[in-house]
């Protein structure tokens, strides 16, 4: 494998990791605050993608200016994330906060299945795809290989902005500090006067929007089909588990590791590609059972 191939593998790996990171970020944020592993997060990815495609088609059919294509992806993510996140938080997650983790898992899994069926009702079973955005942005050539600007520039930038923005929000803003407080201990945060209901609603909407953004940004390059949400759910869970549940920095590193390992394996050993995320997860968890970045849980009493 020569130097140019290494560059190619790096670039493919980074653009793949960017999408994976966005979805995993939402999942890990929700877990951090609510301590619930939200299986329905996979549906948010799928719905985000489908809805973005619907908006993309609307732009074409209403002959609106094509430059709206890229902003429409973000609009789609915010609408779907806000809407579904709110519905899920209000009707389900809020009611199972103190229940057994197994029950929480089952409830969110049920929500996932309901959403998956609704999605089939709305968008059908044929693959859905709207790719005008990628075409508009054009391509660039690296080491004799053509890449789209979309995957090489847009995706990684969005991931970096989401990462930096979320960290800034959690550390520097009053609301973000409240979210962090709830993450540490819900009851104490409540006792200190934090409106935990509002924080949780916000977290679900934000986390949901991140998941939906992953889908929306994938929609110009990927055909959306039934079952795509489950795929992404499993992968992003691998990222979150490798990182340590609730760890934002860890999620970035784990997504990058998985993305790069995957693209390098396609060059060197294609047979291992499918296994790669799980091999990394197993390897990390063997050494650090709590995940890469998890600190030892502080005693609460």
């Amino acid at each position, binding site marked *: 494998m020569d130097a*140019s*191939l290494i560059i*190619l*593998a790096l*670039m*493919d*790996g980074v*653009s*793949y990791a960017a*999408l994976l990171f966005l979805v995993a970020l939402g999942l890990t944020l929700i877990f951090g605050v609510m301590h619930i592993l939200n299986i329905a997060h996979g549906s948010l990815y799928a719905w985000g993608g489908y809805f973005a495609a619907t908006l993309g088609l609307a732009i074409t059919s209403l002959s609106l200016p094509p430059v709206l294509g890229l902003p429409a992806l973000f609009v789609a993510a915010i609408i779907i994330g806000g809407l579904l996140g709110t519905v899920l938080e209000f009707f389900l997650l809020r009611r199972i906060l103190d229940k057994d983790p197994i029950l929480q898992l089952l409830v969110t899994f049920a929500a996932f299945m309901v959403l998956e069926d609704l999605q*089939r009702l709305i968008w059908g*079973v*044929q*693959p859905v*795809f709207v*790719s005008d955005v*990628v*075409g508009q942005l054009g*391509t660039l050539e690296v*080491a*004799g*290989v*053509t*890449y*789209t600007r*979309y*995957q090489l520039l847009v995706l990684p930038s969005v991931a970096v902005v989401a990462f930096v923005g979320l960290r800034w929000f959690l550390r520097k803003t009053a609301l973000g500090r409240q979210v962090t407080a709830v993450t540490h201990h819900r009851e104490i945060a409540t006792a200190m006067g934090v409106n935990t209901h509002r924080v949780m609603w916000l977290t679900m909407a934000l986390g949901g929007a991140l998941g939906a953004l992953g889908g929306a940004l*994938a929609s110009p*390059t*990927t*055909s*959306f*089909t*039934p*079952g*795509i949400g489950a*795929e*992404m759910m499993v992968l992003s869970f691998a990222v979150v588990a490798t990182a340590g549940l609730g760890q934002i920095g860890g999620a970035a590193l784990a997504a990058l590791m998985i993305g790069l390992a*995957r*693209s390098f394996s*396609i*060059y060197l050993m*294609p*047979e291992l*590609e*499918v296994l790669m995320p799980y091999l990394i997860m197993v390897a990390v968890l063997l050494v650090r059972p709590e995940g890469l970045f998890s600190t030892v849980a502080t005693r609460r009493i």
Partner: protein
Amino acid sequence: MKLKTLCAIAATLALVHGAATAQDKPAELKIGISTFTSGPASVFGVPGKAAAELLIDEMNKAGGIGGVKVTPIFIDEGIGGDKLLSEYRRLVQEQGIRTMLSAISSGNCNIIAPVAEDLKVLNVMWDCGTEKILEDKRYKYVVRTQANATTEMVASVLYLLKVRPDLKTIAVVNQDYAWGRDSWEIFLNALKVFKPDVRVVAEMFPKFGASDFSTEISRLQALRPDVVLNTGWGGDLDTFVRQAGQRGLFKQNITFVMPLLESSLERLGDAVPAGIIAGGRGDHYWAHPETRDDPKHKDFVAKFRAKTGAYPIYPTYHMAQALVGLKTGYEAAIKANGGKWPSPEQVAEAMRKMKFKAYGREVTMREDGQGLEAQLLGVTKRDPKYPFAVIDKMVLIPAELVTTPVGQKSPVWIKSINPGLAKVLATDEFKPHDFK
């Protein structure tokens, strides 16, 4: 002990029931149809089901099968092999259904075929492709009214040799499951018969349902093989074609072979460039060079479009073949049975000796239950009249040339193919038909 006795009673009852239906004409002929209504393969299953509903409706208006009304009962293949099997048994043992069309997935056919044989149920494998089922074992109750993977892949190789006779290197990007692996094995073995020096530069099997082929595409751009094979379908194939187009892979001097592209053409719209070798698992195409003006075919295309809003794709034609085949078989068996209603084994027997024609060329059934179905291959072309690519330079390859003979097994037979076969395609008989 008790369970065994119960089973024995149930089995006896089933037999008695079967014997009864063998003589009296039933009020209706219930047929069980397994199809994907969930999961990624619903891109085939849902159009297949729509075709079944449409065609059975038409058939019933014209008097059904032997004067008996046909009632379909659909079961979903997307629920997985084990559950499908219990649904299948439920239809047979609780509802007394003795005629089944199953399945789309080769994995499901592998599970169903031995069970159909045990239950003494006529099973028409209406869409699955694996050649192994009918080659590895002799079945009495199982038939296939369409081609198998060997026929499809050897025909694709022959067409490729016609388009790119000087090929030296090949890469493959197939889905990582049985069909992706098996089809590559058959394709490569057949290709090596004609081109013993062909060099395989990359074998890539991305995960089934993969949503990103970016790295595969980068690697193909770096390798620049003469030929890239992709036997994928559904969302996987769509994504690959879109991403390859976005990344400029089609602008390089690579010949792409996509034996299932016909089923994605309309969906992909302008994403399919000209010059890709496309097939549709048999000789079915709405613009089939020999049957496009056949009033029955035109009527089917029009009705299917009115019902679903899309052009019919190969699974709908496979469904048509299964239903026409079933009707032909039943009617032959009724005749042979002196006008009396036949038993499933009599129909299965008749189906092995018949010829029938749906919307492609006539299909001849062999004694091992395998149908001989011609293969239509062509090259994509853009036509201003359609918002999607069409298939041009179509060649119809007769199944007899490219199918493993009865009693032989594909891996051995393929290696014994006469390399002179490639020249046959150069003769006038196989002049390509333009798209009209």
